[in-house]
């Protein structure tokens, strides 16, 4: 087992040296400490190689040590694609490399790198088209190669007791980021009596304070302690703000919980993302950014190696060189991209301890040490002009490279909120502007780098005011990009894109940065552009003759960081509505189906005998008596002096002339003359109508009624009483006989209680409203009782009907029964354009009414010829059965479609409804229907209804 190289305290803020952790990586055992991440423990053991890149399977190691790059993605038993530089180490952990062919150390697919010129940018687009027919081959290959980690399904199943949950939260101000800026902002806001929620993605507060070095510890500890002691500040660590949405709605993800937070205002103190330099071999294990070096030293007490070369495009590089020297690392050289440092004193101090400084120079190439599987030497060359070097250089041996060339602000959340990211080509400085009201930035994300400025900005943001402009600290080198004749200067590490790939994308015609992204896949990997956006924008700008500001970066979208699907799936709501008779259906063996949120019985019986059960139910209704639960049907109470007038205007039929005790079919159109709902309106009283509507439509109808009356101002009250009433439809030739047994106070004779009448009486002792309706085409009564009595009514009717062999019937049987009568179902036989004329329902339009919704439009439509008509058709049993939406064809042209079709046990043939051209609507016409699978059948048009044409059975 390799031994660790650890620096003594006070290095190692996060580790607990008293808690050694043993773990396995790629089959080899290591020891780390509690508080380590997997990556810090591996590097402590000088194991830099952690993964293989997506396309070329190149060796990769950490770049940022902050979870900002995807080089550290490793496989855990519990999860694939785990960031090794964020995942805390646990004793006994087993970690594996991902995306390797063979082994991590000897990945045979790394040979792909040699074939780079055959895998040009846009490779996917180009490969799929030519030669024709090659796609299935590529699909198989790509499917095997694509993806990184693997989901262990047996692990997931065994551990599914992990509770993912969601919760709402509220705060006056949410501060995102617990570094010096965020801590200051939180304290200032709390002082102003605001309720503060402070979030940080790390385990502890402090942010950059934590890794800048021991010199900042006292100030850090004091601020953190003040925050933790403040009762008005709630702190959530291990929490990342993954999106900003309108009116300061934030998604905060904390391990297994998603907090949906409404803030009155937000302060983003989210810091900056350090950028790599672009040179050949810049992706080798051991090439890291300067803040990664500081993290390793100060958070984890890890020496990144023994011999460092520092590539400095700013003075921070010099500071890190000093820190390395102080930690006992040999700084082999500082390679300064600029003519000179801005802090000559520090430069002199470093030279005095033997650190050579190469000015106006760059690393032209980093080369691999094949044994150590990390960088082994670099070639340093003089810069002749931006992006170009001298013909020769010198080689320096090293075992890691520290890159300090600049930062990009964490632009994602502000840009999601509509802010604009601008960049000044001359100074290479970023600025975020056009923030929405209530959003403030503080810290390096807002251009503040000196600690005083950072804290001042934090305080100002916390007090909800602007701070003055910060001192400008030149950190961004404008062009740390050096093309190499042999390439492999990586712009996007996730997607293995080199300089030539970006430039060639523009040469292929894709010059808009959005197109470059999609064509080349630059920025589409796990790091989502954190390290490629700036370099890509610079390259594209340069080659297309625009400024970087004009070129821009691609749209920022949530989530900011990867989140598990479980976080979004945890605690989902599936509203379920049940009628009062629900358990009776379950006890009777019903197969339940969903109609919106309602559960209704589709049929009663086992699934493997579905058709038979449905047919038996149909025949029971036709021959004796059946009972169906219609509680889900909408029920609206329309009451008041203008109740009749209201219904007159709302529906197509006339209702003002209905006498109490009468009911009428109610057809509803919208202003475009389209049929949108139907039901029955029963007049119980001069000022009281009880109106039914479809199960799925009643809520919309109710809302629509309220909206119309808000405009008409009629003296009417409308209430949605759907749930207050339970209802059944008892239908069949024996229905009256059954009802008579439980309803003795009502004269049920045909004269006293005719078809389409409504009565109020007690049924089985329960106060009820009875409507004689004919949806299924038999003698039938809809009996509505107060909801609490539903089950009792059901039981009484079944008992009373025993001697008549009463059968409960479900939705499927009802659909067949109504189809035999040619009755339409709104939404199935009608679509978003169906008007009453197409449905042959002109009879439902009251011509003499001055107004109803849709009347004017219908008058116009009636002057035009019909384009289609809903007609009935039949087919013999045994012919292929068309399904809903099967096309009606005239030759090879679409001429219509089937809307309903079923086998009719009553008539012993198939019956259906279809939209057909008006020329084909005559009974006896033949239409051709193309069934599923392509078979065509000829069906015969028949006048509706198919069954009981006189309507005698329902009116008896």
């Amino acid at each position, binding site marked *: 087992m390799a031994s660790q190289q650890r620096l003594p305290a006070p290095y190692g803020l996060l580790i607990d040296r008293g808690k050694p952790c043993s773990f396995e990586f790629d089959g080899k055992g290591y020891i780390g400490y509690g508080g380590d991440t997997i990556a810090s423990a591996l590097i402590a053991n000088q194991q830099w190689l952690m993964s293989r890149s997506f396309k070329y399977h190149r060796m990769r190691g950490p770049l940022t040590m902050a979870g900002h790059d995807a080089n550290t993605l490793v496989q855990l038993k519990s999860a694939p694609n785990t960031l090794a530089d964020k995942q805390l180490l646990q004793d006994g952990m087993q970690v594996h490399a991902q995306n390797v062919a063979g082994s991590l150390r000897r990945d045979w697919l790394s040979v792909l790198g040699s074939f780079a010129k055959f895998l040009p940018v846009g490779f996917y687009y180009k490969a799929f088209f030519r030669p024709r027919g090659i796609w299935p081959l590529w699909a198989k290959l790509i499917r095997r190669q694509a993806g990184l980690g693997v989901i262990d399904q047996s692990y997931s199943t065994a551990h599914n007791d992990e*509770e993912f*949950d*969601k*919760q*709402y*939260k*509220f705060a006056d101000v949410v501060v995102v980021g617990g570094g010096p800026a965020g801590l200051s902002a939180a304290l200032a806001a709390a002082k102003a009596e605001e309720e503060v929620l402070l979030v940080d993605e790390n385990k502890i507060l402090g942010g950059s304070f934590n890794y800048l070095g021991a010199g900042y510890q006292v100030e850090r500890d004091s601020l953190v302690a003040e925050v933790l002691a403040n009762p008005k500040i709630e702190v959530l660590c291990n929490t990342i703000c993954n999106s900003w949405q309108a009116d300061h709605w934030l998604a905060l993800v904390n391990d297994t919980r998603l907090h*949906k937070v*409404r803030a009155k205002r937000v302060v983003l103190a989210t810091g900056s993302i350090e950028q790599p330099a672009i040179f050949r071999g810049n992706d080798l294990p051991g090439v890291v950014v300067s803040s990664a070096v500081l993290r390793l030293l100060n958070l984890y007490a890890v020496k990144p190696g023994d011999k460092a070369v520092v590539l400095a495009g700013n003075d921070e590089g010099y500071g890190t060189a000093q820190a390395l020297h102080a930690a006992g690392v040999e700084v082999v050289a500082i390679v300064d991209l600029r003519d000179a440092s801005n802090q000559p004193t520090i430069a002199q101090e470093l030279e005095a301890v033997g650190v050579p400084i190469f000015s106006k120079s760059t690393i032209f190439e980093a080369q691999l040490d094949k044994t150590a599987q990390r960088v082994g030497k670099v070639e340093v060359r003089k810069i002749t002009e931006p992006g170009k070097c001298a013909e020769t250089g010198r080689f320096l041996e090293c075992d890691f490279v520290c890159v300090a060339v600049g930062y990009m602000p964490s632009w994602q959340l502000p840009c999601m909120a509509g802010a604009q990211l601008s960049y000044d080509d001359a100074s290479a400085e970023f600025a975020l502007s056009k923030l929405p009201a209530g959003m403030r930035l503080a810290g390096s994300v807002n251009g503040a780098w000196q600690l005083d400025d950072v804290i001042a900005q934090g305080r100002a943001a916390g007090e909800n005011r602007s701070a003055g402009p910060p001192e400008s600290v030149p950190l961004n080198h404008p062009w740390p990009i050096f093309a190499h004749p042999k390439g492999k200067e990586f712009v996007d590490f996730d997607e293995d894109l080199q300089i030539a790939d970006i430039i060639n994308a523009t040469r292929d015609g894709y010059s808009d940065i959005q197109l470059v992204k999609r064509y080349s896949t630059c920025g589409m990997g796990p790091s989502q552009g954190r390290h490629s956006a700036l370099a890509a924008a610079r390259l594209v700008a340069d080659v297309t003759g625009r400024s970087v500001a004009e070129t821009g970066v691609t749209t920022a979208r949530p989530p900011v960081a990867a989140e598990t699907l479980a976080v979004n799936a945890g*605690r989902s*709501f599936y*509203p*379920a*509505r*049940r*009628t009062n008779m629900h358990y009776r259906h379950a006890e009777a063996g019903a197969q339940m189906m969903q109609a919106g*949120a*309602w559960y209704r019985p589709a049929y009663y019986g086992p699934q493997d005998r579905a058709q038979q059960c449905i047919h038996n139910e149909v025949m029971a209704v036709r021959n004796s008596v059946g009972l169906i639960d219609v509680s889900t049907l909408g029920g609206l*109470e329309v*009451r*008041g002096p203008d109740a009749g007038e209201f219904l007159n205007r709302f529906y197509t039929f006339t209702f003002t002339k209905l006498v109490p005790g009468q009911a009428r079919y109610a057809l509803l159109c919208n202003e475009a003359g389209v049929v949108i709902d139907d039901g029955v309106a029963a007049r119980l*009283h001069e*000022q*009281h109508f009880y109106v039914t509507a479809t199960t799925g439509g009643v809520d919309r109808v109710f809302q629509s009624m309220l909206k119309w009356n808000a405009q008409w101002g009629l*003296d009417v*009250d409308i*209430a949605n*009483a*759907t*749930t*207050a*009433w339970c209802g059944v439809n008892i239908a069949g030739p024996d229905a009256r006989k059954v009802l008579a047994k439980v309803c003795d106070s009502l004269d049920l004779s045909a004269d006293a209680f005719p078809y389409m009448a409504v009565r109020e009486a007690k049924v089985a002792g329960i106060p009820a409203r009875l409507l004689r309706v004919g949806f299924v085409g038999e003698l039938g009564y809809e009996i509505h009782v*107060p*909801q*609490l009595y539903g*089950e009792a009514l059901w039981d009484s009717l079944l008992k009373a009907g025993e001697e008549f062999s009463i059968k409960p019937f479900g939705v499927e049987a009802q659909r067949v029964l109504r189809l035999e009568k040619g009755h339409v179902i709104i939404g199935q036989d009608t679509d978003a354009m169906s008007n009453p004329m197409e449905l042959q329902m002109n009879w439902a339009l009251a011509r003499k009414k001055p107004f109803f919704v849709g009347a004017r439009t219908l008058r116009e439509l009636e002057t035009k010829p019909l384009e289609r008509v809903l007609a009935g058709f039949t087919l013999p049993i045994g012919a292929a059965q068309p399904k809903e939406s099967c096309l009606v064809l005239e030759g090879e042209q679409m001429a219509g479609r089937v809307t309903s079709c079923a086998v009719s046990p009553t008539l012993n043939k198939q019956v259906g409804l279809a939209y057909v051209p008006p020329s084909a609507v005559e009974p006896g016409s033949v239409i051709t229907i193309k069934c599923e699978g392509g078979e065509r059948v000829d069906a015969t048009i028949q006048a509706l209804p198919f069954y009981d044409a006189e309507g005698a059975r329902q009116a008896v």
Partner: protein
Amino acid sequence: MRGQLVDSYPHAVTDSSLGVCDLNILPRIGFKGAEARDWLLSQELELPATANSAVQNGLLLTCRLSETEFFIAGLSSDAEEQIQTLHESWSLDSQQRCYLLERGDSHACFAVSGDHVSEMMAKLCAIDLRAKSFAPYSIAQTSVAKINAIVVRISIDPEPRFLIFADMSSAEYLWSCLLDAMSEFSGTAMAYSDYLKRIK
């Protein structure tokens, strides 16, 4: 949900721990219309002055859902008679623009009370129901577990309590959502007898 109050559960709910009680069988009634306010005043009920607030008239909780809509819930089974009286006093023929709603049939009623009740509700409802933001006798007509509901705060001290009214057809669904949300805080179902002890 079959019309009787559950009198005991295997686990007794201690003094202040989180619990939910099924109050579906308690009486409820609604009135709405341009003259609903006048009619209810004529029945000698005290009414809330503003929408989305409630007053307690003895055993009756009178909620004002809008300028013209009122929801009256009995707080215990002893309120049956009073609700019945209101029911019988109303008729459609009275020429008054006040219309009755059978809230006992259309709406379910649950009481949730005890420690962490606001945190539990924050898993189901996007309204800020914390004590500082939602005072006693405040009403929120909103969405709870994705269904329409009326949430009324009854008290903060000595115990935080809400009544939740929602569509009766979703009662079983809402009950299961409430139990699930409270499991994190060791909340459980509460028998009516325990509930009565708590409201005394």
